């Protein structure tokens, strides 16, 4: 029995099909959505969603933060931004990382912890995007 996987960004639906298993980058570690999984709702970190069929990865999508809703037969990924790994622009991601790093250097570390956390998450996400792209190419 497959899992119905949907990867949705605010603008459109990227993927909507049945897969054997999907590995999702949760904020506190990767989690695999498989049939009969206990219902979980989780926060995502920037990372790669891998789609498995017959034990091999068939597709990889980079998601930049968001949420996932896993139930026994369905897995819905609500991504802030999502792109197929093959279409990531390394230059763009590198530029973004540089911009974030300078922002990080300038920011006051005693500032409100929430915005520091958010910035940190963005930096990690940009790094993960570059890693994903260079691993694929």
């Amino acid at each position: 029995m497959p899992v119905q996987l949907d990867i949705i960004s605010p603008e459109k639906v990227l993927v909507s099909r049945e897969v054997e298993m999907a590995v999702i980058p949760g904020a506190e570690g990767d989690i695999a959505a498989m049939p009969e999984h206990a219902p979980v709702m989780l926060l995502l970190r920037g990372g790669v969603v891998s789609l498995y069929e017959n034990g091999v990865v068939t597709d990889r999508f980079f998601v930049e933060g968001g949420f996932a809703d896993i139930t026994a037969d369905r897995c819905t990924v609500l991504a802030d931004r999502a792109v197929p790994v093959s279409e990531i622009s390394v230059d763009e991601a590198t530029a973004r990382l540089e911009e974030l790093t300078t922002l990080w250097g300038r920011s006051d570390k005693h500032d409100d912890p929430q915005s520091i956390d958010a910035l940190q998450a963005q930096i990690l996400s940009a790094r993960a995007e570059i890693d994903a792209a260079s691993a694929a190419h």
Partner: protein
Amino acid sequence: MASLKELRARIGSIKSTKKITSAMKMVAAAKLRRAQARAESARPYASAMRRMMAELAGATVGEEGGPLLLTGTGKDKIHLLVPLTSDRGLCGGFNASVHRLTERLIRRLQSEGKTVKLLPVGRRAISYFSREYSDLIVDKIMGIPGDVPFSVAEGLGVKINALLEAGEIDVCELVFNKFINAMSQVPQKQQLVPLVVEDAAETSAVADENKALYDFEPDEETLLFRLLPKNLQVQLYAALLETAAGENGARMTAMDNATRNAGRSIDSLSQVYNRTRQANITNELIEIISGAQAV
């Protein structure tokens, strides 16, 4: 009676107006189709978001000190109104109806002794409200690109959230045109803060069924704190897309009417023109004939 030359000039000018209005109608029709497609493709995210919100709100309901976006500040003193309009005119009563509804709300809230603040979106609303209520405007957004990227809604959501966190507003309401079809858009208001949890009966049913089952990672509060601003942005995004579709629908209808009126006007002017021309010819003939008879 107007001279033949004047009539010719008028007919000529109406003909070129007609060309412009019919071109605008065609452009608006094409843009409307694209805007509708965008609104269509944005729907799955919004509905998935609503489902998660319902499940989460069910799990955390009734807790004290919830996030401001969900519960509001507990006061009802300062209202922020966000009228959404287009950047350009020539679309019938599309923007005027939003202005009118917003104005009615402002007057009603002020007569109830409440403070009103405005965050107009779109050049039309900005110019209208800076004439009449310039002291109420706290912020403004304009120059939204035609393809309405999500980042616009994101920016707007962040602004509203910041005002709320700073304690500058208690309630936030959106005023925009709901897109019914190309012919009709209905102005309406929608409360954004505090959040109105939709179809409460259905929500609680879902929650009861899944309450014990659902796991939350990292935990309910963290998720709720992240989901609420996103939810606000998604609602704003949906309203922005409806405004974009409505603007083009309204412009299409308005330009269709204008084209038809121009055609009618050309017809009646041509008739006057032809009659006048014929009358002139007849007059000349009568003059010639009576001249000949006199000889």
